[in-house]
């Protein structure tokens, strides 16, 4: 692509990354180093571990019976739960997700600060089948599938209802009018056809979409 100044630059394409099979100009040593870096990065980044409190006490790998699962993804949604829902009287920490990527790393500690990146699971003490997840860390696109499989794989679903809370920048919302005139709080929902209850806000209209972990 030529710019206004006459230079030719390679523009990013909506096709995504170019084919990996394109021949690269590199020596065998460079190729080996690149492969090692990619392998290490893949190994560190590829691993996601879900640790439950009962595993530490030696109770083994029993699946958690879950009827309601509320997931808050992103710092805003996690903060919403911390401010309005969670407290140490009614909720107990039952698990944590440990992952690493270039943007953040979570640890296995459950004693976290609001500014940390974390992914914690809480259970309602009065009804242990109600589970809540606060995920303030960024889960990279090549980790999202694994996150899902590991988290949902640990559960025994019993008429499971899942609620996902998430936020998106207003600038991403596509509408005919200006985004300055939108009401606040501006809420939209997506639901599966199996969800028969009343939704508390309007549904997300085309052409808007949701991506990343909430979409997964």
């Amino acid at each position, binding site marked *: 692509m030529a710019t206004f100044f006459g230079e030719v630059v390679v523009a990013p*394409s909506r096709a995504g990354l170019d084919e990996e099979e394109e021949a690269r100009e590199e020596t065998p040593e460079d190729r080996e180093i690149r492969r090692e870096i990619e392998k290490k990065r893949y190994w560190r980044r590829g691993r996601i571990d879900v640790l439950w409190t009962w595993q530490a006490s030696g109770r083994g790998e029993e699946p958690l019976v879950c009827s309601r699962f509320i997931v808050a993804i992103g710092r805003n949604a996690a903060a919403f739960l911390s401010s309005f829902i969670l407290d140490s009287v009614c909720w107990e920490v039952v698990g944590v997700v440990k992952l690493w990527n270039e943007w953040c790393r979570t640890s296995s500690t459950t004693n976290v600060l609001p500014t940390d990146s974390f992914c914690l699971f809480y259970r309602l003490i009065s009804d242990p089948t109600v589970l809540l997840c606060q995920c303030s860390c960024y889960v990279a696109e*090549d980790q999202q*599938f694994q996150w899902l499989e590991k988290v949902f794989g640990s559960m025994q679903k019993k008429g499971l209802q899942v609620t996902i809370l998430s936020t998106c920048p207003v600038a991403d919302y596509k509408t005919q009018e200006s985004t300055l005139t939108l009401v606040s709080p501006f809420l939209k929902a*997506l*639901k599966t056809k199996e969800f028969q209850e009343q939704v508390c806000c309007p549904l997300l*209209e085309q052409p808007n979409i949701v991506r990343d972990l909430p*979409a997964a």
Partner: protein
Amino acid sequence: MFIPCDRGGDSAAPDFKGFTLLMPAVSVGNVGQLAIDLVISTLDMTKVGYFYTDCLVPMVGNNPYATAEENSMELSINAEVYSLPSKKLVVLQIRSPFIKNKYRPFCETLLSWVKSSKCARVVLLSSSHAYQRDDEQLLGTPLRYLLTPDLEKAVGGRMKELNWKEMEKVAAYPGISDTDKVLHIPGGGITKLLFTESCSEGIQMAVLLKFCSEGDNIPDAFVLVNYLNEWLQLIKSEVSTSNNSTDLSSPWKIPSSWRLLFGNGLPPALF
């Protein structure tokens, strides 16, 4: 990989034996995907299932082909399958980019699904960077086709009748004249990989591609879908003979999700 939709009483998985699978490559300008949107929207195709895959970036939204309030609330995800049995057509739409290092696993799984579902042939809609054309390619039609050897026997003659141009191979080492010619589709995403794998696995595949650049690719999508229609005759194209012009867009229905492709309305406070 393929999960059929639960259509109430009909619990049997859909049968695609002998069908033509039409699908896009995620490529420059997303032209293939836009063309597929036009096909699904115009033929009012029914969703019959989706691909459960970790190879594509996740996304979800409401029905992109909604025409009214009643049908606008069905969820839609990144890889869905639509079918039109009357034309023996099954269409795969891909709505998000591939995750790094997942091209090959996706292609392998896709081709094994093609074989297990006994599709007769695959038609891949794609595009390639216009700026990579050589001097000869700059002239004439920007549309090209490719056929695997198995499909060449069946439809190669038809392509000649239509006066279509086959995608040229380029020198493996440009500048050196006495060198092997290879297939090169820059900006084509998984096109080359799928095509070469299909050749070696004996799958009947055709690739239809257009040279284009990033930008407003809606006209490119119309050109590509009309090119496809010349061969497959999915819809009747109306040619106005009286004033010698063809309105390329008229028979195709633009889906509602194409609204606001280039951003929101302007804030009044700007003026």
